[in-house]
């Protein structure tokens, strides 16, 4: 059969979803082969927002790369900083004061809640409901105000330093965080009533976008995506870092494998994050916030080190290879969104376009995190 005859029989067409499409939340392009509204093949085309962060990490000193970490996954910027700082500290053998570790946990978890709130709003916009976004932003603003008061930034934080944090938290921050937790707890039933129990929302996400645990493992998916498939994999529990061992919290996981499971994981994670923050605030130790004698220009001994943190989107890993000079010999950033997005091609085959976009939304992709 000639190629022309085949193409007539197949009657598929290529639909370019993005790089400027409302549902891709950035410059992600997905080349869809469509049969009517059914997706035959979905090929993600990435790289539109590539900024060579890994290369930048190799041609400048360790401290100079720190601000870059806030630009990788800018929605949950503190985790990137945590991963990088942790890797360098591990290689340099710097011990971080306990108070600094507590502050890192508190701010990180706040950032996780902020990130999940943004996702909740954006996901609902993907599904066509615009109103929850504004409520989520209202709550998220409170977190950003709190974080601004200690980090000086609202989005692209650069707060963690090698050996600690750059600003101490004060009583205002502690009181503000406590009142925020009270506020968000009182608003959770509202989200539950208007979003979780919404019949149209349930129809849009229940049983839609099934991802088996096996597929997650195959592609290295982490975070809420794998936890929504019934695997309670969380770096905070599996390879505890910082002071997470000291807190009681659960890792929510649901076995339904659909978009609703991933939604419920994130909602439950916000609750758990608030638990962690409360415990950390209750047992916040006094003391210094920076390790002593951290040189201005770090020169690490030859070595190779990997540090993994649980970002809001999954496992964010940093590998630093040092050859003894001021710069890293190799910096590798393992970003959760890249692996999570890889699932899309396999899982979206045969889906309808609106359902596939619900699936894409449930991944919580931040495109600069994919492109780096």
């Amino acid at each position, binding site marked *: 059969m000639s190629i022309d005859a085949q193409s007539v029989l197949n009657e598929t067409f290529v639909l370019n979803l993005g790089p400027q499409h409302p549902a891709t939340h950035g410059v992600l392009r997905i080349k869809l082969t469509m049969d009517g*509204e059914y997706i035959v093949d979905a090929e993600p085309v990435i790289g539109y927002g590539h900024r060579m962060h890994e290369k930048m990490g190799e041609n400048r000193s360790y401290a100079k790369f720190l601000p870059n970490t806030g630009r990788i996954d800018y929605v949950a910027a503190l985790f990137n900083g945590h991963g990088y700082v942790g890797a360098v500290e591990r290689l340099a053998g710097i011990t971080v004061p306990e108070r600094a570790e507590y502050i890192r946990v508190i701010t990180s978890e706040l950032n996780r809640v902020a990130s999940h709130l943004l996702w909740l709003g954006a996901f609902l916009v993907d599904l*066509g409901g615009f*109103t929850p976004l504004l*409520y989520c932003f*209202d709550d998220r603003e409170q977190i950003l105000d709190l974080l601004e008061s200690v980090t000086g930034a609202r989005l692209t934080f650069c707060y963690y330093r090698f050996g600690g944090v750059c600003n101490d938290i004060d009583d205002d921050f502690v009181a503000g965080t406590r009142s925020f937790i009270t506020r968000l707890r009182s608003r959770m039933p509202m989200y539950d009533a208007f979003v979780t129990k919404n019949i*149209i929302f349930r129809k*849009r996400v229940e049983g839609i976008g099934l991802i088996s645990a096996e597929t997650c493992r195959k592609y290295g998916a982490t975070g809420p995506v794998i936890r929504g498939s019934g695997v309670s994999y969380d770096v905070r529990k599996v390879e505890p870092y910082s002071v997470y061992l000291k807190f009681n919290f659960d890792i929510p996981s649901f076995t339904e494998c659909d978009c609703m499971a991933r939604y419920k994981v994130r909602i439950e994670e916000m609750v758990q994050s608030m638990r962690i923050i409360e415990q950390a605030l209750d047992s916040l130790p006094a003391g210094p916030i920076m390790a002593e004698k951290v040189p201005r220009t770090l020169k690490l001994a030859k070595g190779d080190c990997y540090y993994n943190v649980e970002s809001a989107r999954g496992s964010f890993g940093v590998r630093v290879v040092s050859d003894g000079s001021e710069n890293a010999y190799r910096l590798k950033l393992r970003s959760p969104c890249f692996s999570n997005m890889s699932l899309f091609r396999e899982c979206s085959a045969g889906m309808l376009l*609106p*359902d596939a976009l619900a699936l894409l939304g449930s991944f919580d992709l931040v495109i600069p995190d994919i492109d780096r």
Partner: protein
Amino acid sequence: MSSDMIMELVRLILYLVGFLAFALLNAAYLTLVERKVPSWFQLRPGPIEVGPWGLLQPVADGIKLLGKQILTPQGADLIMFKLAPVMVVVPGVLCLVTIPFSEMIVPRNFNLGLLMIFAFGAFGVFAILLGGWASNNKYSSIAAARVVAQNIAYEIPMLLVVISLVFVTRTFNLHTIVEQQMGGFWHWNVLNLKASIMMPIAFLIYFICMLAETNRAPFDMVEAESELVAGAFTEYSGMGFGLFFVAEYLNIMVGCCVGTILFLGGWDCPFGLLPGLHWFLIKMYVLCFAVIWVRWSFPRTQFYGLLNLSWKILIPFALVNLLLTAFMLKLFH
């Protein structure tokens, strides 16, 4: 020329100008309501810059749309592409011709008013199909294909409900339908349980179908901005897009007017306080508000969700309603 003819001519021109002004002002200011009302839902002020309380916002929008370059995509069917926005507005305006706003104010009172409204209502869908198809854009084509299936899905239950109502009213004349409901809100068709005990459900079915007919959320599959960018209107710019926008609000208004007339007693005043016209407008705008309220409270249904809703719930209920109405009419009259 006799003075009668001159009077008739003056009357004609007054109605023509008056109703065009009424229709377009309503369409324009419903866009303001569409922006102001959700802003209260969403804890934000909404448009406040242009004019006091944002009241001149529709004017600014209109000027902006007029100033935009009108682009025609490559490979588009030029005539169809240009024709579609016109075709989508005209039925909306024409439908208003038969609507009795009060006992006295009815531009053209004739016996097949209801039939004419539904005939022209279906015409608007055809225009969207045309616009989507002529755009030569894949997103628009998908939306155009959707509009056809959606049309079939919601028109059937809607017409079934209206037919059951016509059983009760025994006329297509909107003026007569309202006159039958005079004398207190218990005479309104929505509460006319003597005619059919399913009347409130029939009204609900009508309202849901009206949302789908006007392509409003949660059934805005044709526009679906997070899926299809702007659906059938993706390639339209300037006033071409503006006309689709005007048509959307005109259709909402017509749908709410018909709902008011068929189910809510038209200009009948429940308490005898204000003149009839006021009550008609109050009822109509309450329905318009409900349409906007629904849009900003719900996410979009899936496409097959609408089809399931229509074929599995609305059509069976509408059929039961039709049978019950016929049965009760036979029994009691």
